[in-house]
């Protein structure tokens, strides 16, 4: 039987115009990653300033310069539809690598913020 769980990993952006590299490890009982979603405690900054590269199990899910706004879901979206579905992802080394870049945008001014990556995973249970 398959169970669906959701995990959260945080990146703290303390400096503007910076790139942060973080690696997160998935639990051993996770068999597949099926969706990803970005949120923040300052969604305006994530929306306007953020871009990232995400690798899961050494497979590039989104490339460098892929804008964070393309992985956000607003309040208008049903909780069941908020995740961006990904395919072909089986967890091998169970590592999630995120390279997050903050860059200036004329519609926002920097202050420290948190970026949260939510990951939707499948667990095989007997």
């Amino acid at each position: 039987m398959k169970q669906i769980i959701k995990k959260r990993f945080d990146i703290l952006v303390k400096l503007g115009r910076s790139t942060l590299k973080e690696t997160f490890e998935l639990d051993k009982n996770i068999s597949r990653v099926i969706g990803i979603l970005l949120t923040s405690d300052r969604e305006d900054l994530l929306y306007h300033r953020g871009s990232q590269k995400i690798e899961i199990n050494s497979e590039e899910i989104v490339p460098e310069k892929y804008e964070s706004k393309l992985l956000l879901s607003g309040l208008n979206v049903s909780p069941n539809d908020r995740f961006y579905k990904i395919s072909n992802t089986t967890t091998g080394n169970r590592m999630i690598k995120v390279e997050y870049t903050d860059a200036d945008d004329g519609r926002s001014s920097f202050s420290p913020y948190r970026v949260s990556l939510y990951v939707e995973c499948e667990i095989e249970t007997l």
Partner: protein
Amino acid sequence: MKTHIITETIQIQKQSEIKHFDIRIPEQTEAIIGIQYGIRFQDEIARVDVIPYDEVINDHFIIADLRLQGAKTATWFYASELRDNLLSIKSCSFYEPAQNNNIPFIFHQKHEMEKLNIQPSSTIINGYIKDVIGKTFNEHISYSITISLHVSLSA
């Protein structure tokens, strides 16, 4: 089906500027299946003449025109006006746009890719971008456009 995303960033700095650019796609590409774009302003866009940007009815502007070519069966396979929201939380009261569900980072829908089904003729896609927002406000506005092409790859 294995998919891949390719990004390309184009800088615009002058009013009515036209930029030609190339996007390299992998040799194994079977089809271009989708496109997305994002716009980032280097200038503080809200500083110029704040009043038109604050009107809720007029918060989305055409930023630029985009065209792409390089398909097997049609020369120009994509043409679109790139639009974005210019509302800045600094330049307007939160209350008014919130009432109208207009703040993009809170009330927007999912950014799904725009679906395409294009067989490329080579590993290079040619593009053309023309500034519109600078012409609209009659000044040089500096911004970058990141185009993300989703492609399907042969096994």
